[in-house]
């Protein structure tokens, strides 16, 4: 190790006397630990003004026990959001080594509904938790040691990331992208790792404090009522929004950004057809191309309708947490594989839309042999509405809505691996 004369480390060693008399601080990790934990000089007392004074915050409700209880609930909510969010990410970007089930068909609508509902219920929890520790922001002295500074930096990252996740999620389900100077999906994904990592570290740091507070401190009626109020707030938010995926709650879902059962053919739509897509979809020369392994077939809408038709009742489950069930009729994807002699058990399909561009113009089907994976032509017995993907769309079980490609123009079959 290079020694800088006058560095804090050396001062610490000088302070302790001869370098070799302290067994712990003599070793390299020991010295590093000393450097990390040595008290920093306190700022002059004259700077201790405003909220930095000891008696600024007067609420009788704050206690370490209350903060611990809120923290445990918030940690559980973050864990649910992280795991369900990770599942949604993996479905959209499947790693080759991971096998993902297509059953139960409604699994994704449950996990993503839970993701958004838990995230919304987190709003009062996070608010109350941050309120309960607000005086600690003005702790005196602000930085006791290098380690304390590092811990405060991690807490700042945790608070910033937590606010980022909750606020960006709320803005996203309201389709209000203006305030977010970034692409929501990827940012929400990576900041989730920062938030959950900072949370795990925070748990590690605070574990003894929480244990002690829950064991020794008594609760008070006023604090119980405060916790109850936070719980009621979360409950009211849940009741006012869950109807976007639980149909029976739809009539009281006053704050749900989407309403199942509404829209063309009784099904909501997130992305509507552009003028180019509309022209191409209604063009009498429309053909669906199925290609792969050097073979290729072109199918008109009449050709598709002449193939064996199958019906499946499957939900459209949006990443934004809403879902709505439809009765879809069309050609099984594996029957289209048979037209070019491909084995659906050993292949994957890339399904492309008539759209010229856009993030979701194509998607891959990893389990094309599934009986309920359709190129649907009809919804509820009628030809698809344009905004549902006329003339033909992909519909498959347990799949995020953005991957249920609409206005299908081309299916490319390739071997899985």
């Amino acid at each position, binding site marked *: 190790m290079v020694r800088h004369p006058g560095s804090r480390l050396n001062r610490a060693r000088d302070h302790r006397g001869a370098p070799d008399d302290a067994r712990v601080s003599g070793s390299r990790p020991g010295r590093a630990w000393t450097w990390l934990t040595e008290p920093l000089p306190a700022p002059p007392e004259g700077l201790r003004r405003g909220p930095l004074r000891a008696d600024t*915050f007067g*609420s009788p409700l704050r206690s370490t026990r209350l903060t611990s209880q809120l923290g445990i609930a918030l940690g559980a909510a973050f864990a649910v959001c992280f795991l369900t969010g990770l599942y949604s990410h993996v479905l959209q970007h499947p790693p080759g080594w991971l096998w993902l089930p297509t059953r139960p068909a409604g699994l994704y609508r449950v996990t993503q509904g839970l993701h958004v509902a838990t995230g919304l219920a987190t*709003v009062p929890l996070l*608010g*109350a938790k*941050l*309120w309960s520790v*607000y005086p600690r*922001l003005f702790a005196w002295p602000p930085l006791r040691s290098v380690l304390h500074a590092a811990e405060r930096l*991690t807490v*700042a*990252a945790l*608070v*910033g990331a937590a*606010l*980022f996740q909750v*606020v960006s999620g709320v803005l996203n389900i*309201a*389709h*209000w*992208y203006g*305030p*977010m*100077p*970034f692409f929501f999906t*990827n*940012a929400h994904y*990576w900041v989730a*790792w920062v938030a959950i*990592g900072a*949370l*795990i*570290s*925070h748990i*590690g*740091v605070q*574990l*003894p404090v929480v244990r002690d507070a829950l064991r020794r401190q008594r609760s008070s009626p*006023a604090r119980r*009522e*405060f916790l109850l*109020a*936070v719980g*009621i*707030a*979360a409950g009211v*938010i849940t009741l*006012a*929004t869950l109807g976007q995926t639980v149909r029976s709650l739809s009539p009281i879902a*006053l*704050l*749900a*950004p*989407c*309403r199942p059962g*509404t*829209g063309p053919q009784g099904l*909501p739509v*997130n992305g*509507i057809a552009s003028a180019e897509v509309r022209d191409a979809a209604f063009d009498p020369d429309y053909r669906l191309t199925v290609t792969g392994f050097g073979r290729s077939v072109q199918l008109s809408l009449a050709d598709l309708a002449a193939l064996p038709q199958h019906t499946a009742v499957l939900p459209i489950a949006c990443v934004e947490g809403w879902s709505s069930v439809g009765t879809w009729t069309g050609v099984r994807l594996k029957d289209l594989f048979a037209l070019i002699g491909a084995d659906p058990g050993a292949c994957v399909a890339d399904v492309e839309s008539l759209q010229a561009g856009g993030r979701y113009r194509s998607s891959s089907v990893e389990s094309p042999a599934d009986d309920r994976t359709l190129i649907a032509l009809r919804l509820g017995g009628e030809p698809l509405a344009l905004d549902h993907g006329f003339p033909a769309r992909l519909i498959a079980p347990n799949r995020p809505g953005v991957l249920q490609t609409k206005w299908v123009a081309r299916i490319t079959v390739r071997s899985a691996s």
Partner: protein
Amino acid sequence: MRRPLIAAGLLTMLYGILGAMLDAEVNLLGVIVFGAALLVLHDGVFLPLVAGAGALMRRLVPPGWHAAVRLAAIVDLAVTVVALPLVLGFGRDAGNPTVLPRPYGKGLLLILIVTTVVVVAGRKGSERFRRRGRR
């Protein structure tokens, strides 16, 4: 138990930070500015207002009403935060009526009125319940 947790957490954070830096579709500056702006607005504007309102409430409202006012304020504030982007309605799409289909301003107002009325009306009952619980 504690050191592995702290280390695992820091490594997880690092993974998120590196991932965001290497992801060409993440505008890193935008993410940092947005997160820092939220932090500053929350801790520098929102929480001082909440703490100030709490202090004002303790001074002006008779103690017997504190619990009821606090309950109504917490529920109404949380619901308003969730509802605000919907009420403002910047996400509405003229071509797509299934996005934000409801009158959210009316919905929010209804929830605020109902929760406040229920809390005020239920105050006597909850008082009685509380006294019984203490015995």
